[in-house]
């Protein structure tokens, strides 16, 4: 079970209709790959976030399947088009079944 998981997202507050905006996301997570060993030589069990999605008003922007090779504190940067004002929803799914979400409003005008 990962502790201290905190999602952070950077989305512009406003945009013009149809504009491509850059979104940056970062989530604090240890992302144990399952390849490391502790001081006694026992393997540390895998604990990663395996899926990340971003939707805007229910429509998918990006969907990323993640493997243990993604580094600690997973970072993603991508571009989205905004047709109207609305809400971005970001979801991360952990191996242990937890889901972390974050929402951001954007105004188009």
């Amino acid at each position: 079970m990962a502790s201290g998981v905190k999602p952070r997202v950077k989305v512009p507050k406003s945009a013009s209709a149809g504009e491509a905006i850059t979104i940056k996301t970062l989530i604090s997570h240890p992302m144990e790959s399952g390849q490391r060993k502790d001081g006694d030589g026992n393997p540390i069990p895998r604990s990663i976030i395996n899926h990340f999605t971003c939707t805007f008003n229910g429509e998918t922007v990006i969907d990323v399947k993640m493997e243990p090779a993604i580094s600690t504190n997973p970072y993603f940067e991508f571009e989205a088009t905004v047709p109207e004002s609305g809400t971005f929803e970001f979801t991360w799914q952990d191996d242990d079944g937890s889901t972390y979400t974050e929402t951001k409003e954007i105004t188009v005008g």
Partner: protein
Amino acid sequence: MTLSRRDTLFLGAGAALAAALPMPAMADAVADAISAFTGGADVAEGGVTIDAPEIAENGNTVPVGVSAEGAESIMVLATGNPTPAVATFTFGALAASQSGSTRIRLAKTQDVIAVAKIADGSFKQASATVKVTIGGCGG
């Protein structure tokens, strides 16, 4: 038991063979991952851009960006990692560009491969070599 010169040579050859074995096994894992993604279809070279550093001082966080015009999804593989799969980006209707950046772990100096599934059903791939001076998979 006494070892003759011939026995010693034979043992040496066996050891060399055993040492050489893991390499083809890794290549198979990469080929398997690509064929699982493409369904066995032909993959053309080029048409995919990988934005990765030539030299990474720390294999724990290597910034890597991929993009491919008109792609539905892009799979990223690290050929020298214990497991080659890294991530698969799938783009929705609202993605402004078929590109994404993230940070990945690389265990050692190796090739990073990106395979893109284009909307018309074709597949394209590109690879980039990253020199890693400190490994990232607990090594």
